[in-house]
């Protein structure tokens, strides 16, 4: 009866090999189950990555009742993969190790002389919660999670449409992260989809832990303060953009989904605009545009007005401001710079602290510090007001990464204003316009409805036109431009 012992030695050897390959981790389970015909079957899996309920009830029980291999529903699907026992030891071992590591259940069945790999992957993870970076008053509270299957489910739930195409890629030699490109067939231009696939395929990296890794590889221009790819945690926003013919890139292990192409005016629209009434949404959108200009230009205009063109300030205000400045040592430029840096430090500290403490720290910190500095005569009160206002307006814009780029711009403009006053700010603004206009996101000009003037798009950028007025199947100009290519 050599054959069975010979077979058992293969199963044991295989288990032995996996044990050594994975460095005998505590969560590696090796169970031998005897079927009714008292044949022993070896089951090997990592219980941290496996759905224990499926393994215990379904696999073990069906193996015991020996009804396992014959049931047609199970065999032949991706769900089950088989390898003949006689296949060369090397591929068998390698296949087994990769299967065990990726959460599959390795089943050595000497009786039927085959090794089966059953996909029972069930990673631990957080449930669907409200995205804390993009809260909305009205609209769904569902946010993406780290598990890509859940994310795909959240998108499919809202898009019961056969035209939704999902294409999976493995990126990262070491982490082998699963990246899925989603688009709507017939709506998204082929050029855009081809370009997205080409750029993703061209990525040579060892690890992809967050979608921002991908973003840096596939974005159009690296040295630019403006994001050319949108990242969001909200499935409704993703579906809205998919319906506009854009491409979404989901990454396993991170709730942030990348959406391309992105234009300048998309940065100012949040998903809430589409759930609120049209006129309120338009007002809020204008509010965001104004807050963008305030956040970037307010401190530099203050510095320019107080140090170069004092005649801009009305007389009464000029008198009270110069009274405030009596005895303040620092010139206005350094004062504003100092307060900006202090404000940034407080904000960063507020973020890093646990939520309850963080909230208190940033508000108390800013006010107390500002007030104390004013009393001590280090800073004039007007500077504290200006810095506080710009700090707050910085958060109005819905895309958080754009908020950070606003800070970069603000510091450069303060520098220019300190050097040349309004003329410096003008040069900075012209450079900014030149940069924005030359920027492209996946072939789509960044300032689309404004730079290559397309009138039809104004309905959805500066103004959110009410639904009845909008032609539903008319794609935004940015995407239509690509269709023509």
């Amino acid at each position, binding site marked *: 009866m050599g054959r069975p012992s010979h077979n058992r030695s293969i199963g044991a050897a295989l288990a032995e090999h996996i044990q050594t390959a994975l460095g005998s981790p505590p969560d590696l389970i090796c169970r031998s189950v005897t079927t009714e015909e008292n044949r022993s079957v070896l089951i090997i899996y990592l219980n941290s990555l496996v759905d224990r309920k499926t393994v215990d009830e379904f696999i073990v029980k069906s193996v015991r009742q020996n009804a396992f291999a014959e049931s047609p529903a199970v065999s032949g699907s991706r769900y089950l993969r088989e390898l003949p026992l006689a296949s060369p030891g090397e591929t068998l071992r390698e296949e087994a190790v990769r299967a065990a590591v990726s959460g599959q259940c390795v089943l050595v069945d000497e009786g039927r002389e085959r090794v089966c790999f059953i996909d029972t992957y069930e990673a631990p993870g957080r449930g669907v919660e409200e995205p804390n970076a993009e809260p909305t008053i009205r609209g769904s509270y569902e946010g993406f999670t780290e598990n890509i299957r859940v994310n795909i489910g959240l998108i499919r739930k809202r898009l019961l449409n056969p035209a939704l195409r999902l294409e999976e890629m493995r990126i990262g030699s070491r982490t082998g992260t699963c990246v899925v490109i989603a688009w709507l067939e017939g709506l998204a231009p082929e050029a855009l989809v081809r370009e997205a696939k080409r750029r993703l395929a061209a990525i040579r990296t060892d690890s992809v832990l967050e979608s921002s890794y991908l973003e840096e590889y596939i974005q159009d221009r690296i040295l630019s303060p403006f994001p050319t790819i949108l990242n969001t945690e909200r499935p409704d926003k993703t579906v809205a953009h998919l319906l506009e013919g854009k491409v979404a890139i989901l990454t396993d292990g991170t709730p942030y989904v990348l959406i391309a192409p992105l234009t300048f005016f998309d940065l100012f629209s949040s998903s809430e605009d589409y759930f609120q009434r049209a006129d309120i949404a338009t007002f809020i959108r204008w509010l965001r545009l104004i807050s963008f200009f305030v956040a970037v230009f307010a401190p530099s205009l203050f510095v320019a007005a*107080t*140090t*170069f063109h*004092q*005649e801009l300030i009305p*007389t009464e205000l*000029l*008198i*009270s*401001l*110069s*009274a405030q*400045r*009596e005895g*303040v040592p620092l*010139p*206005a*430029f350094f004062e504003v710079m100092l307060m900006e840096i202090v404000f940034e430090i407080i904000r960063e500290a507020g973020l890093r602290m646990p939520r309850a403490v963080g909230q208190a720290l940033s508000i108390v910190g800013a006010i107390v510090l500002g007030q104390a500095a004013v009393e001590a005569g280090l800073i004039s009160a007007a500077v504290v007001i200006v810095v506080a206002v710009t700090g707050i307006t910085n958060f109005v814009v819905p895309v958080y990464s754009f908020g950070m780029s606003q800070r970069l711009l603000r510091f450069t403009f303060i*520098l*220019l204003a*300190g*050097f*040349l*006053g309004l003329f410096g700010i003008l040069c900075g603004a012209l450079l900014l316009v030149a940069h924005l206009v030359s920027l492209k996101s996946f072939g789509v000009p960044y300032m689309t409805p404004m730079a290559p003037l397309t009138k039809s798009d104004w309905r959805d950028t500066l103004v959110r036109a009410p639904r009845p007025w909008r032609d539903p199947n008319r794609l935004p100009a940015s995407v239509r431009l690509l269709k023509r290519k």
Partner: protein
Amino acid sequence: MFRRKAAAAVALALSAALLSSCWDKTELNELALVSMIGLDRDPESGIYTIRLQVINPTSGSTARGTPGGEQSPVYTYEANVRTLAEADLKFYHLIPRKLFLHHAKAVLISGRAARQGMRDFINFSELQPSARTSVPLFVVDGSIGEVMRTYTPLERTPAESLSSRIELLADYALQSGRDVEVRDVIERSERDEWIVLPMVAVTPKTGNLDSRDVDASIDANRNQLRLNGGAVIRNYRMVGRLDDNELVLYHLLNGDKGTFVRRVPFRNGHVTAVLLSRGTKRRLDWENGRPVVRIRLSLELSTLAMNEYHPRTLEDIRALEKAVSESITDELDAFLDKTRAKGWDLAGIRSLLGRKAPKLPNPDRAAADAKIRFEIKTLFTGMGNLSRLYEGSGGTS
């Protein structure tokens, strides 16, 4: 890779240059905020005396300074120079901060300097782009030194007090108008037209002006500045004066819009009429070779202040309107005859001829004997709160 390093190097160098040198930068507390400018010239010695009133930011908000606060809201600096250009330099002997003229609210010129001619003052101010010429110009009746050292109640600085008084006089008494600024003097003098500027004088004093105790007294009629009459300016030189009554007529002719009050003879008595002028229109006609200037003036009559009589029938209204028109016409005729006798052309006849008939052989003679005909149309529009006056016997009118 080299290019990126070069770009970074250039950026760093640029920002270093940025920080080190800022040429036009002046901090707020390095500015001397000039609120009033006084110009004077001594005819004999030719010495210019420039006085600047600088706002003291740290003093309290009221004109008299905080009660008990010893700081004065404004300081007057004085500089005697041979040429105007030296003025800026001379001031830096006294003022520790940079002169800041943008917020000047009023410019004063002494009577004697106005009589000698103010063209070089104006050239100097228009030369410097930082000094605005859209600032009201006052002629001082009396010593400008005293005027520049007098506080005025209620307003923080005397300049603000003077400029807001002009606006009130223009709206409510028509004793001033929109064309009282330095740029109007320039334009009128260049176009050989006449202009009348408001005059400022010091009210009687009860103590030396610049001591603190004087301004705590309740009587605001003394120790401050008063606006009275107008200085007639032609070709940058003051040639005469107008009293307040004539000033209203001048501004009427000048086309200024504002309300004014007149005592109008009506049915062997007098009524006080509140009139609103809607501006004048001039037309040039020819009657057998002689230019005739028709000045059309539309007035709106209101019985708001008419406590003597109240029209009840249509005829009464027509009669009242006719009486007002005739009275105003007579006053304007008398005023023009008097001023044209002195050779003044306050109605702007000469410039009208220059514009409408540029190819006239001898414009001055034609302007001198041009006939002026007034067409005044008065409309009864506004009325007070009473539909019939009280007729008790205790009245005086």
